[in-house]
């Protein structure tokens, strides 16, 4: 077992860190305050291949591994949680299911533009009545055999990259099936393009954190999409959604890790500068012990996140491998650590930590969502314990 990063990963981290420092960090505060989607930076990330890191070169991607992708989300999130989640939702929740379940035609049609960032991806599973309980889906898709089109009706809420995306993976009910003597909803997944008649946007959410990410309601009213836009097999949508979220959790875990690391870096610099009682607050044992605990937790989170990323990489070459538990553990730990680290970093900043000009204030607000989206911490505990007790 070797914990040393390869030369490739060291160089990739250097690249992402440089990009984050030069391009992303200067915009982070404005993105948060004005709730602006950082379009220019997303275009730049597309130009440099950050939007298609694990996509094979034959589909216009970078042909890199999942760890490199996780490191990209991590480094962006160190300075801007919004930018981190844009990359994560795009890659894990839209690009990945097309890559994993798409037909050759679907991959050839959608992946090159997604991998180059010309188009942005999103994923619609959550509904007002179907969050953690994904089986509670109400959105319906009915096949019109006369025209060979699926007709979508319903709505999705809290969709990341909502209005800025071009390609959406949408989960919908396509009928009923009997499972173990019970009638269950048959769920399928679809690829929906922006601009399809009947596909509109509802309200934009006014959020506590990750305020620059475009979070919208998606509304489908007799929205007709071609039959060939069914993603994967009919009736397999629930599995596709759950498997997609397994991967998404690695992205969000990387986002949480980045937020924790970013807050810790800012705080280490701050406590050396800030003087109270005639000496820097870094000289107080309370500061030292708190920082020591936080750094230890951040390192633990990093190891879990990187392990989950490497486990998913194993899956890429052998689809018998499951990374569900590793992803759940990484997200559970990283999200809770991010919340603790950012909160304690605000505390070490004292009154200044509560002021908008200081990055840790934003990071603390950004961190909270990592305990909630793509499966709450409680859902991660369900996944982990179910594997333990099966």
């Amino acid at each position, binding site marked *: 077992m070797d914990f040393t990063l*390869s*030369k*490739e990963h060291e*160089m*990739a981290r250097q*690249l992402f860190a*440089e*990009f984050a420092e030069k391009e992303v960090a200067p915009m982070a505060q404005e993105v948060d305050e004005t709730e602006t989607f950082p379009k220019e930076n997303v275009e730049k990330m597309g130009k*440099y*291949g*950050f939007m298609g*890191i694990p996509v094979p*070169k034959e589909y216009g*991607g*970078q*042909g*890199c591994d999942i760890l*490199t992708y996780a490191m*990209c989300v991590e480094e962006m999130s160190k300075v801007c949680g919004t930018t981190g989640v844009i990359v994560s939702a795009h890659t894990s929740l839209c690009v990945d299911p097309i890559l994993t379940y798409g037909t050759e035609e679907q991959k050839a049609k959608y992946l090159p533009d997604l991998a180059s960032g010309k188009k942005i991806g999103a994923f619609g599973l959550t509904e007002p009545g179907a969050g953690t309980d994904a089986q509670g889906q109400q959105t319906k898709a009915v096949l019109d055999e006369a025209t060979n089109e699926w007709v979508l009706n319903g709505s999705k809420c809290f969709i990341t990259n909502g209005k800025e995306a071009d390609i959406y993976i949408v989960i919908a009910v396509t009928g009923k099936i009997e499972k173990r003597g019970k009638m269950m909803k048959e769920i399928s997944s679809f690829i929906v393009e922006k601009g399809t008649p009947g596909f509109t946007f509802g309200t934009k959410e006014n959020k506590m954190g990750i305020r620059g990410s475009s979070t919208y309601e998606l509304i489908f009213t007799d929205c007709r999409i071609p039959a060939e836009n069914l993603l994967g097999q009919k009736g397999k949508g629930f599995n596709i959604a759950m498997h997609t979220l397994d991967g998404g959790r690695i992205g969000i875990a990387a986002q949480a890790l980045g937020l924790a690391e970013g807050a810790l870096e800012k705080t280490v610099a701050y406590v050396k500068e800030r003087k109270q009682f005639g000496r820097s607050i870094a000289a107080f044992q309370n500061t030292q012990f708190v920082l020591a605990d936080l750094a230890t937790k951040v390192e633990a989170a990093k190891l879990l996140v990187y392990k989950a990323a490497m486990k998913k990489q194993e899956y890429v070459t052998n689809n018998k491998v499951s990374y569900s538990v590793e992803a759940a553990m990484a997200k559970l730990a990283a999200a809770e650590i991010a919340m603790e680290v950012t909160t304690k970093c605000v505390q070490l900043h004292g009154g200044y930590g509560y002021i908008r000009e200081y990055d840790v204030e934003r990071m603390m607000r950004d961190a909270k969502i990592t305990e909630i989206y793509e499966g709450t911490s409680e859902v991660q505990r369900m996944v982990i314990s179910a594997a333990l007790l099966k």
Partner: protein
Amino acid sequence: MKVVVCVKQVPDTKGGVSFNPDGTLNRAAMLAIMNPDDKAGLEAALRLKDEYGAEVTVLTMGLPKAADVLREAIAMGADKGILVTDRVLGGADTWATSTTIAGAIRNLEYDLIITGRQAIDGDTAQVGPQIAEHLGLPVISYTQELKIDGDKVIVKRQYDDRYHMIEAKMPCLVTALAELNEPRYMTPGGIFDACKAEITTWGRADLKDVDDSNLGLKGSPTKIAKASDKVRKGAGTKVTPDSPEEAAQYITDRLLEKHVI
């Protein structure tokens, strides 16, 4: 069109500086980056690749660790990297360095050689023009803009208060200013390819038409008497006089005390 770009691995100004007992830099002990002027030169070459399909070869002289800047260059889009490394080449000043690099370039085909104006560690601005002299090529230094017109380069050569527009027939050498352009980033896929790419490594034996007496520390006319890191200044004294006259008087008194005036 074939372009050779000479790059140097220099200490990262964010890190500390370390010296060998003989006063030369202990490069192995320092964080390192691609010299900024050289990176601008590389970007200029990559734009020629984008526009004219130029083949870009990147060459560096240094410790084996200097291969890192070649990999960075390949990850940005360069086609191949050549590392010139040999114990006998160590401790070289600008004369020995330019002799070595010219000896390496004599093995290559080229239309244009691009070097940075100067490196942030030595700040001499001598190596580029010296390479041109060794190779008998025209040189245009301080390039702020670079265009190709048939078999000629057209260069905007920058001065403090003016610029010259200069044409030269290729093959020739230009030295680039960091202001020439905004270098591109590497790409993740480029990094993965660069780490797999083979770096050509040349030693003393591969250098063409050079004499041992012009190489390494022994072949360097420059002798370093003493080298030191930047001496850190104290915090100073802060005074807040009531008027500009009092402030001027205060400064004058201090300068008189020190016999400066």
